[in-house]
């Protein structure tokens, strides 16, 4: 440790307490982002301490990366500079929960799973059931902008985050929104914090709207010989009066992956055996409500699946459904764990273009002789994973680029949230340049005038 970093550590220790500062290189490896490790890590115990740390970092021009359980640090670009890991896991309190008002205020380091327990006592939940849910914190899930299969019915975080408190890049504590389910008082600054990877502020509190748990659920798994038929079922469901909670389409290899041992290690809830076949495309759709609602849903889904040419359809109740849901929710970590160079594209497309985009992506991957798997959310978001072998790395890079360009040409939003660190500089990780990047850069300068918050991690080099 040199003299400068010793001074930094002692100042951090003054703010957060010596036991909450790490400067030992062995410990700091846990905070690595794309091959870069910080000079120190600090774990503030309050929003005031977090603000103090940011203020200090701003004065010293130290680059900070805020984080929770560190499950998604591989997303985005490597930081240009990385001096300080701001570990928010000690801010883990549920500040207020008012079930009658359907509102919840939590600190960002609260584990998602712990919240589940708190809310379930009042038969409520937060539809933020996103990848890495078994380990992730609320703050990291919000800051990384990952989505849940439940977005089909409940929308994404932007639809149920009511307000936030955060610390901007000069150490100022600020807030927007509130703690009521309907509110137009002031600008919705919290909207831009969602998915910003901590580049605009350090989130210190998040207010949510909560939702009643559906009475009972039933999940249907239908197998198809082609993506086209699977998408036909998606279309029928979308055009019907049914209100599914989730609609997920899985490629044969995705189905295979979700039943693998790797998957079991990530989501211990068991995948019901025999429901997913590695020879078939599958549609998994779940519904919630009373017995009568579920019966009607089943009747309609079975009819529509048959019309779409399903090879078979199974209905899973509350005993087996959650396992199947958990596995599909964890598609991203399962795919990442399955190969050393897994590259996952996220393709946002109009639902009617999903087939074209899936075909184009599959064609590009096949032409490059790459193994691939796809999971598509029925609303029009495709996660397309490539699993290149050691000798296929060059081809994978080209294929990822091709798919991204193809998707953009079809009017979609394409990005590459996960790929090997070494490729980050060669791939348009955040997608092709958009006309509004310049406004985003200006916004960044307002929130982070010294450019110390996760510099370089975000879209457009922000």
């Amino acid at each position, binding site marked *: 440790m040199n003299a400068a970093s010793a001074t930094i550590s002692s100042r951090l220790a003054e703010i957060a307490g010596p036991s909450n500062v790490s400067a030992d290189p062995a410990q700091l490896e846990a905070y690595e982002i794309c091959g870069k490790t910080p000079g120190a890590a600090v774990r503030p115990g309050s929003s005031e301490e977090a603000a103090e740390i940011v203020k200090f970092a701003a004065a010293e021009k130290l680059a900070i990366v805020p984080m929770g359980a560190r499950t998604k640090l591989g997303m985005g670009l490597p930081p240009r500079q990385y001096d300080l890991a701001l570990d928010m896991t000690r801010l883990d309190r549920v500040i207020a929960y008012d079930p009658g008002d359907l509102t919840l205020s939590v600190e960002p380091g609260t584990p998602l799973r712990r919240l589940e327990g708190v809310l379930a006592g009042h038969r409520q939940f937060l539809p933020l059931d996103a990848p890495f849910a078994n380990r992730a914190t609320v703050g990291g899930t919000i800051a990384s902008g990952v989505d849940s299969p439940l977005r089909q019915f409940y929308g994404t975080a932007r*639809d149920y985050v009511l307000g936030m408190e955060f610390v901007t890049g000069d150490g100022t504590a600020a807030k927007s929104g509130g703690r*009521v*389910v309907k509110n137009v008082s*002031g600008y*919705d600054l919290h909207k831009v914090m969602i998915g910003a990877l901590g580049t605009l502020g350090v989130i210190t509190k998040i207010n949510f709207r909560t939702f009643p748990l559906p009475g009972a659920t039933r999940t249907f798994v239908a197998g198809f010989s082609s993506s086209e038929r699977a998408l036909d079922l998606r279309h029928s469901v979308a055009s019907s009066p049914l209100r599914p909670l989730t609609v997920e389409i899985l490629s044969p290899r995705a189905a295979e992956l979700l039943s693998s041992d790797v998957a079991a290690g990530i989501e211990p809830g068991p995948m019901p055996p025999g429901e997913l076949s590695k020879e078939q495309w599958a549609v998994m759709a779940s519904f919630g409500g009373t017995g009568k609602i579920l019966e009607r849903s089943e009747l309609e889904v079975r009819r529509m699946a048959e019309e779409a040419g399903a090879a078979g359809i199974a209905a899973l109740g509350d005993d087996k459904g959650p396992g199947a849901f958990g596995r599909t929710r964890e598609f991203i970590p399962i795919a990442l764990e399955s190969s050393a160079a897994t590259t996952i594209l996220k393709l946002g497309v109009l639902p009617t273009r999903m087939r074209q985009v899936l075909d184009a992506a599959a064609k590009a991957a096949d032409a490059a002789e790459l193994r691939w798997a796809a999971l598509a959310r029925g609303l029009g978001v495709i996660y397309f994973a490539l699993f290149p072998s050691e000798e296929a790395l060059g081809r994978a890079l080209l294929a990822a680029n091709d798919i991204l360009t193809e998707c953009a040409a079809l*009017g979609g939003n394409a990005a590459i949230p996960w790929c090997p660190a070494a490729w980050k500089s060669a791939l348009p990780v955040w997608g092709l340049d958009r006309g*509004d990047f310049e406004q985003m850069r200006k*916004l960044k300068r307002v929130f982070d005038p010294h450019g110390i918050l996760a510099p370089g991690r975000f879209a457009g080099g922000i």
Partner: protein
Amino acid sequence: MNSRLLHNLKKLLGRDGVLYEPEDLMLYEYDGSVETARPNCVVFPRTAAEVVEIVRLANRYLMPLVGRGAGTGLSGGAIARQGGIITSFARMNRILEIDAENQRARVQPGVVNSDLSVATEHLGLHFAPDPSSQKACTIGGNVSENSGGPHTLAYGVTTNHVLALEVVLPTGELLHLGNSALDASGYDLTGLFVGSEGTFGLVTEITVKLTRLPEATKTLLAVYESVDDATETVVEITARGITPAACEMLDGWTIRAVEDYVHAGFPLDCAAILLIEVDGLREAAEYEGAEVAEVCRLHRAREVRVARDACERDLLWKGRKNAFGAVGRLSPTYYTQDGVIPRTKLPATLRRISEIGQKYGFAIGNIFHAGDGNLHPIILFDARDQQQFRNAVAASDEIIQFCIEVGGAITGEHGVGMEKDRLMPLLFSEADLDLMRSVRDVFNPAGLLNPGKILPTPKGCGEIHVRPAPEPARASGPAPA
């Protein structure tokens, strides 16, 4: 009015594209709020390119610029507080594209809210945000104000239904934010723009989500002898895990005003009614309707009526949506508040509102979105009487103060505008407001666009000012959501 500017505007938009005579301008000096201010001129562009040119001219002649839809807003958002050019979107009123399969529509800002739902009904779709002024208000205005409505409890407010925007910044730059496909990369600028009350940019095109019409709808009217019973019903419906599509409450005073005018069949001798709607699959509407009726009876509803057909349902809604018009008949002026509170605080808040009314000697009617705790107390007063005007503002401020004390906010759906900017410091710190100001300056650096809105002028921070009384005798504005 600068004659060169006028000449240039006429050259750009044609003679009939510019209004500047005092008698014409009078029609544009107010909206649905109690404020007024006269613009220097009103212009009517037909294209985004014309909007860009208007913005350039405003910059050249340093004229403030204010966008305007139908002028039904309730917080002065479309009023030229400091004079200048009002850009009316009345001629940009085309539905550009309806994509039924993807449940999207692309519209110009001047499209009337309910026109989009009418145009998509045969496809089994609608545009879900439904402010009470939906037959007049425009989608551009809804985007600016992030408008709500009775059905936002289950379906969300405007921001939940907007995917992409084309905007002209006050610098003259034309920008595309978001995309009709989901999850565009980068910061959610679309989400930031919606509800910015026309202070970031002029919206020239909007891509919205369309929502499938429910298979079945059940509308219930529950009649109560006590306001507390009605509010407790609302709390218990939530506790049972039911999110009604709408849950509206009217107090006895308001019911009598409405019934006299609309003849919706509301009982005249009760303390409150709840208008509750559940929808979805037939089975879901059936089940939730029965549950809701049971909860109403458990909480001593004297009568629970279920609309038998669409006709009865429409009549009940007509009573609700025309309530403000009905109240307007009773008083030269009324002032509608828009505070929002955690719904479990409803009984206490209504008691407090009643006390405040007694203290100042006003009749205060209550009509509100009970399901999401969004209040609309209506204070009846005579604006010609300066003392009454000041008292109405004071009473309204006390109500807002109480809303904040119980954990609420100053506006649920009407916007801050020029009416509640002075109340913002009750909710936000100087640092919060500074940050909001800096964010506004990113898009609107010279402050040319809609000046004097949302953010209090720094010198006025923390003070409560009494506005000058408006011109006398303009009875009531259009209906709020």
